[in-house]
């Protein structure tokens, strides 16, 4: 298990991360989400010792990252898929990384095959597409056969087949008991395989719960179209149902279409459309982070 306790980081006067604390469980995929500038990358860099926090710490099974005997065998991380010399071949890139951690050179060939880059092993990284770089970076993270994977936006640049491969790989990794902590802007993609979410905004922790729990934070809405909007709104109001009316359409909160249908029938009100809208994870997250979004479209 990974325990993040009270992480805080300032850059000059700007507070990048403030008192962030959460646990990441083994055997599960934990998504790390938040708007741009929320502090995700800074937090992940602090988790692998690249950035020194002003206060707080991160422990892997009770041990700080910088005190791990062989970090590569515990934590595999990809914080930037561009971290490779363009003049070096994929094979040499991985051989150098393997040697750094005291791993046999053969591991380079094994992980290249694991990520599907064996035919590109002799090519220089400068000629790789972004998707190939992502795969090569992931191969580097897998060299030590770690029990934890920390990935920052791993889907960037991957084609749909690659995204599906990554999703399956990470799910399998977690099911085998591994810990996966992955940040992503692709909420829809995360919702398909993440078990838990850590949501941050403005450098602060907003939520650390299961996906279901976060999704349930947003209300189900019912959309109704009727030629008698005023009558229906009055009937609903008498039952304590909130409605926002726009022409012949009403958007209702705190009710279900079964209830609305029954009320309309009992009151003799004709309905043209009746739709129940379940909250999506994206809606829930946007609601959660709205106040913390640093850069938003008008």
């Amino acid at each position, binding site marked *: 298990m990974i325990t993040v306790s009270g992480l805080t980081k300032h850059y000059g006067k700007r507070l990048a991360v403030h008192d962030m604390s959460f646990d990441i469980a083994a055997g599960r995929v934990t998504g790390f989400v938040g708007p741009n500038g929320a502090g995700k990358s800074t937090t992940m860099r602090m988790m692998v*010792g*690249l950035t020194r926090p002003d206060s707080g710490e991160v422990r892997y099974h*009770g041990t700080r990252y910088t*005190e791990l005997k062989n970090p590569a065998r515990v934590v595999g991380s990809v914080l*930037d898929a561009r971290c490779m010399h363009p*003049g*070096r071949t994929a094979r040499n890139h991985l051989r*150098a990384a393997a040697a750094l951690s*005291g791993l046999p050179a053969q591991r380079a060939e094994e992980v290249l095959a694991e990520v599907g880059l064996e035919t590109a092993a002799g090519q220089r990284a400068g000629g790789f597409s972004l998707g190939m770089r992502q795969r090569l970076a992931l191969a580097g993270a897998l060299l030590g056969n770690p029990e934890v994977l920390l990935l920052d936006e791993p889907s960037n640049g991957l084609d749909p087949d690659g995204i599906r491969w990554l999703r399956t790989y990470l799910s399998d990794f977690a099911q085998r*008991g591994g810990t996966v902590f992955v940040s992503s802007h692709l909420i829809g993609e995360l919702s398909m395989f993440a078990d838990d979410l850590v949501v941050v905004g403005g450098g602060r922790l907003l939520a650390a719960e299961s996906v279901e729990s976060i999704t349930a934070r947003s209300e189900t809405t019912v959309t109704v179209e009727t030629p008698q909007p005023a009558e229906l709104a009055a009937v609903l109001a008498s039952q304590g149902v909130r409605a926002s009316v726009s022409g012949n359409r009403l958007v209702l909160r705190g009710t279900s279409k079964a209830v609305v249908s029954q009320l309309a029938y009992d009151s003799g009100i004709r309905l043209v459309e009746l739709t129940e809208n379940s909250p999506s994870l994206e809606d829930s997250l946007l609601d959660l982070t709205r106040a913390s979004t640093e850069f938003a479209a008008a």
Partner: protein
Amino acid sequence: MTSTTVAIPSTATRASTKQLATRSTADDLKALPGVLKSEWIKISSLRANKAILGLTAVVGGFVAWAVATLVTDEVQTISEVFIFSTVLTAVFASVAGVLLFSSEAQHGTLATALTAQSARWVIVAAKTTMAIAFGLVLGAAGMVASFGGALLGGLELGSTSMMVTTTLWGLLFTALSAVLGLGIGMIVRHSSGAISTLLVWGLVVENLLTLFLSERISRFLPFVAGNNLLGIEGEGAFAESAATALTRAQDALVFGGYTAVALAVGTILLYRRDTN
């Protein structure tokens, strides 16, 4: 908002009681061979370093041949001329030293190295060792090529009594130049910035300073001291009167001192700076 702990299933409960082995200084020392191997792979897998080696040999051979062929107003011998190009070899070695670190910082592989090896002094030790080794290789290549160039230029061998000593001092100069480049690269963390700093200082600033400063002071400038290791006699920025000249050992201490300071400052910054 207070932190919320995510629900932990039974498999993770077993994992949470596991305690991971912690690193000791002995582990850091044991890691050194692997880190050295990694640095060797990095240095030998890039065409740029092979290009620097090739350039050193070509320039060394050409300079010696040109001196042998074009300088006709004094009698030159191979044993005197073979060391001339080492002035340029030292420049190439310092550039190679800069790139050992700054290219890693620029391409992001430094972050990868630091996540794999938390003991940053091990990385510094390995890079310093590689810098010394590469500096020695460049020095040797330059001198061998110069020897050949002078031979091709038709020079006689001359007295060889000081050749071994001059060779050793020359190799020390190129090795220390590579380490100086490494230190500057660790401080500046930007290839062109570090290389410009070195070249401008070595080729322009020091030459200007020697015009204004007395020899008693200018002999302590880094590249004045370094180039004096080569024992090249003549006029210009490197000439010193007998009264003020430092011995080669003293020149080595001066140049080595600057190198050690650059490396020490670079190491301190490596520990203190965040790495993106």
